[in-house]
């Protein structure tokens, strides 16, 4: 009896002290025609409150599998994933998820797409619309709320997808190469906006990317993954000083290119 209360108390205390997200010794493999293919070997990492972490790794190293596992879309074979000190069954609360594909519903306008999450959770329509309009305005899409996705540019569509994620006010954003399909200018602009909104809202961000420069310029910490079966190869605390709201200015610092070169070396890409 007392033991149960004590255990609950320690768990509560752990929830207070533990980082936002703790991944411990997670492994995941796929069954491909009877052949077991290990994708994630043994992966441990943490994401602290208000932190931006980038994850880079060689192509096909199971980054997307990792993200889907964190979101509760896949169940790991072994290991633990704790959000706020607790293991969650199914989808964790207050986690926003965004992919390279904008996944906008073509039959909904920009506004309709943005308020999707609010509608699913049963927020009153008027409130959902107000919040969504405000979010679209913040992301520079004022006047495009009633446009269908087919009439928007790639950058604008990805902004709508970001608005759809952010309007739910998630504590954590999990982004899987969200800007990879955009041209350089759109990418820098949307990166700036994303970082500003994350920092201002005291949210946390985990960004999975191929783009080392993007990883370094945005993140407080860069985690480099190994080839499959994936494990953590190296971790870099990125110290570039200041507020780092301007993704172009960040790239001019000499430390920036030093980080990029070291991570590039870690990735061990074979040039042909």
């Amino acid at each position, binding site marked *: 009896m007392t033991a149960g209360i004590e255990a609950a108390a320690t768990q509560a205390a752990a929830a207070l002290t533990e980082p936002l997200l703790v991944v411990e010794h997670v492994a995941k493999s796929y069954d491909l025609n009877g052949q077991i293919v290990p994708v994630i070997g043994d992966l441990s990492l943490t994401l602290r409150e208000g932190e931006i972490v980038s994850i880079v790794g060689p192509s096909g190293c199971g980054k997307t599998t990792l993200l*889907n596992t964190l*979101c509760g*879309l896949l169940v790991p074979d072994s290991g633990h994933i704790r959000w706020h000190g607790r293991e969650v069954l199914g*989808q964790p609360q207050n*986690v*926003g*998820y965004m*992919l390279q*594909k904008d*996944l906008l*519903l*073509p*039959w*909904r306008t920009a506004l309709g797409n943005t308020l*999707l*999450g609010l*509608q*699913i*959770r049963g927020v009153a329509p008027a409130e959902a619309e107000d919040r969504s309009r405000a979010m679209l305005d913040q992301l520079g899409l004022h006047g495009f709320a009633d446009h*269908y*996705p*087919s*009439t928007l540019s790639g950058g604008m569509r990805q902004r709508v997808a970001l608005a759809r994620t952010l309007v*739910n006010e998630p504590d954590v954003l999990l982004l899987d190469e969200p800007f990879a399909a955009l041209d350089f200018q759109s990418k820098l602009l949307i990166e700036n906006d994303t970082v500003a909104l994350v920092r201002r809202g005291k949210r946390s961000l985990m960004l999975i990317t191929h783009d080392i420069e993007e990883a370094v310029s945005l993140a407080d910490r860069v985690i480099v993954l190994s080839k499959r079966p994936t494990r953590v190869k190296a971790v870099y605390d990125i110290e570039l000083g200041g507020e780092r709201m301007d993704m172009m200015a960040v790239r001019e610092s000499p430390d920036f290119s030093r980080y990029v070169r070291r991570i590039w070396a870690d990735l061990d890409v074979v040039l042909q």
Partner: protein
Amino acid sequence: MTADVDHAPAHPPASQAARRRWSRFRATLAVLATQLAILVALLAFWEQATSSNKAFAFMFGSPSAIGGFLVQMVRDGSLWRDTSITGLETLLGFFVGNFIGTLIGLSLWYSRFVSRVVEPFVIALGSIPIIALAPIIIIWFGTGLVSKVAMSTLSVVIVALVTSYKGAVGVDPDQINLMRTLGASKFQVFRMLVVPASLTDIFAGLKLTVGFALIGAIVGEFMSSSDGLGHAIFKAGSLYVIPKVFAALVVTIALALFLTFLVGKIERLLMPWRRRL
């Protein structure tokens, strides 16, 4: 140096828009004129070939004779009566068949188990030629409206089932994952994602099944009936009045075109996001 910066204004001036619309209209006009010319040439050749030869005229009819029968059918009211009866049978079969088929097809999305169980049965049913069922249908449902609607429904239902099921399972799994991370229940995923995403396939099925529904109704009328376009074709055919067969066929084609046109209109009404594509 060529600076290829596109300075085209977002909204072209009215005159430019008008010019573009005019050139598009002219292109459409050219297509229509050519189609009309081909039709006129064919009819002229047909008329010419059959007017000089009595046997030919008997075997193949002639445009003028067909026109004569059409006028006669309008005068004695049989055109309107037959068309409305066949049209009603077709529409009822079309709606019932598509409703049932789409309902089953979409709900099969819910359970991988059920859809796998059902699959061979659907294929088996789909491979039955509907004409083969006609005698049984007449025995079961009589010679009136119901048996034709049943024939029409049967011609439609499997196609509607297969196309809507294909649409439902073709939904991007990433899109379903996204809905789930937003907290959607399975029913919400179904209602907000799967159903609207399947609309494109459902409408492709609807357009296809307009013809099938009409064929079902007409085959039913062939077997046993006292009115309808199928009855008119069958009766004229057995009396060797070939121009009248063609006249009824022309009306049938017109009916099919009209119904297809209606489906297209409804499609554009229901899927406004596709208008600008």
